[in-house]
């Protein structure tokens, strides 16, 4: 693997939306739309929702790797061009992942800037939140790869990441408080990795109504790491540089 290969593949994949500011704003703004509505209707819910946006800003575009993988393999045939070249599989995979980071970094920077302005946070806690966002991004990049490698038609390549984005980002209590759900549904909601990530991030920002115990924190981290590891394993089983 060469760093240059990774950077240029990332740039190649992100150039189309870097060249189109409208598309860039829409893509990086996806994570912010719920915050906007929550701020409009209930001002007090805006800050916890902004934590959700910070966690999901990388993750949403991480999921979009599915489209990059699918289109570069089946539509542009760019993957085939690169397989028959000195470029390594790892450079290609990292390059496409990097592309999703390029697209979502402005959103992440913006959400963190607003949060830090309104909620003072210790540097170590801030790093913990960045790590949570990075883990979510990584986990959803792996899911994106699995989708991109599995689907065989364009319609599914476009729709599946959107549906999954809704199921993981907007449906569970990532933007809204967990307490809004009926008590019976809360344990189920906590099984969703994005809920776990949002709860943990809200804890580090001091935005949870009740604090988490050290065991709960440890379990949450272990759960997130386990989720990423599992997704990595599934992706590794699916991924083929040379087709079988």
């Amino acid at each position: 693997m060469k760093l240059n290969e990774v950077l240029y593949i990332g740039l190649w994949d992100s150039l189309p939306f870097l060249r189109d500011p409208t598309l860039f704003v829409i893509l990086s703004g996806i994570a912010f739309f719920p915050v906007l509505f929550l701020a409009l209707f209930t001002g007090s819910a805006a800050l916890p929702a902004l934590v959700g946006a910070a966690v999901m800003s990388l993750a949403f575009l991480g999921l979009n790797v599915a489209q990059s993988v699918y289109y570069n393999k089946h539509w542009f045939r760019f993957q085939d061009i690169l397989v028959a070249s000195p470029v390594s599989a790892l450079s290609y995979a990292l390059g496409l992942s990097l592309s999703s980071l390029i697209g979502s970094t402005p959103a992440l920077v913006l959400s963190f800037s607003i949060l830090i302005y309104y909620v003072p946070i210790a540097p170590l806690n801030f790093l913990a939140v960045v790590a949570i966002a990075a883990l979510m991004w990584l986990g959803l990049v792996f899911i994106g790869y699995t989708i991109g490698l599995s689907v065989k038609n364009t319609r599914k390549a476009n729709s599946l990441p959107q549906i999954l984005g809704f199921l993981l980002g907007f449906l569970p209590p990532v933007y809204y408080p967990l307490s809004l759900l009926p008590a019976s549904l809360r344990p189920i909601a906590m099984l969703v990795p994005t809920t776990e990530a949002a709860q943990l991030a809200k804890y580090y920002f001091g935005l949870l109504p009740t604090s988490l115990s050290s065991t709960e924190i440890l379990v949450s981290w272990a759960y997130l790491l386990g989720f990423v590891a599992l997704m990595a394993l599934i992706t590794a089983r699916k991924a083929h540089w040379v087709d079988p």
Partner: protein
Amino acid sequence: MIEAVEVSSPMKAHGNGTKVLDKVKLNAGKGQLLTPVGEKSRQYDAHPDSHHPADADLRLGACTEDGLQVNVVEVSSLGKTYPGGTEALRDVSFSIERGRIFCLLGRNGAGKTTLLRILATQLQPSTGRATIFGLDISREAEKARTRIAVLPQEARPQMMLSAFDHVRMMCLIRGMPRAEATRRANQILEQFDLWEHRNKVCADLSGGMRQRVLLCMALIADPELLFLDEPTIGLDPLGRRQVWAAVRRLAKAGTTVLLTTHYMDEAEHLADNLAIIEKGKVAFLGTVDEAKDVAGVGMRMIVEPLVNGGQREVLHPSSNEEILKIVERSVREGLKVTFQPPSLEEAFINIVGGSIDDEAQ
């Protein structure tokens, strides 16, 4: 000249019933109509890890005095069965000399793209062995990939990027320094008449121009072996000729080209050698002229009245005497004679079409 790899006896049978190559000899077979399609194929288990004496023979290949390997591509008993069970290739063997243009012809689904993708290290073969530059495509793919480039079938450019973006980015991805990448991109765009369109996004380019952009992307690396999967599909006659000229130039400079095509005139124009693939097997291996000979396609003479309205005769003379007789009769009777040389298309239909009849029987 094509050297067909021929399997010769004796073969050993493994305990599991599969036969293993015991000896392979490179046999100079000109214009061979190979294993009739429909004949039951022999199953060889020439695993890449096998250490048969044949492996060593194939690896050595034929070298010139200056040490250059003559046979850039060596394919031996190659087979491919997809995970779903579809058998795409069976017992394919051939070789390609350095600097030659080798065309793969065949109907849709015959196995051309599968074969090209295996040789371009994009697809794992199921059986048999193939080497490029003496490197095993399964075990030494990484080394081989530094010397090849491919233009895949139905590749498309990014509509929101310019021709220059495509070519320059490919240079950068392949490791060229930025200044060199810019220089090389400009040079190749000029060579393919894309210079004045270099800053237009691909959405604004014609189909032919887009195809040329993709071709430029494949060519920037100066590959020693170039794989082109239907490179002129969708191009206008002028665009096709530009591609042909580029391919010819490359071959003249020593690049070996393996291309698949549906266009017989393309193969006729370009191919030093060709293989006709039918139902995953090599149905013919040789030159264009040999294909015409083997298929029994000879000169056609069309005899018709000078003015419209009379009867038109299509004749297939088998000797010079017969030709002379037809000409004499035509002069005597005031008829017009047109000579029609045999076409590769007719040869292709004869070779491939035979199998349709076989199937019907």
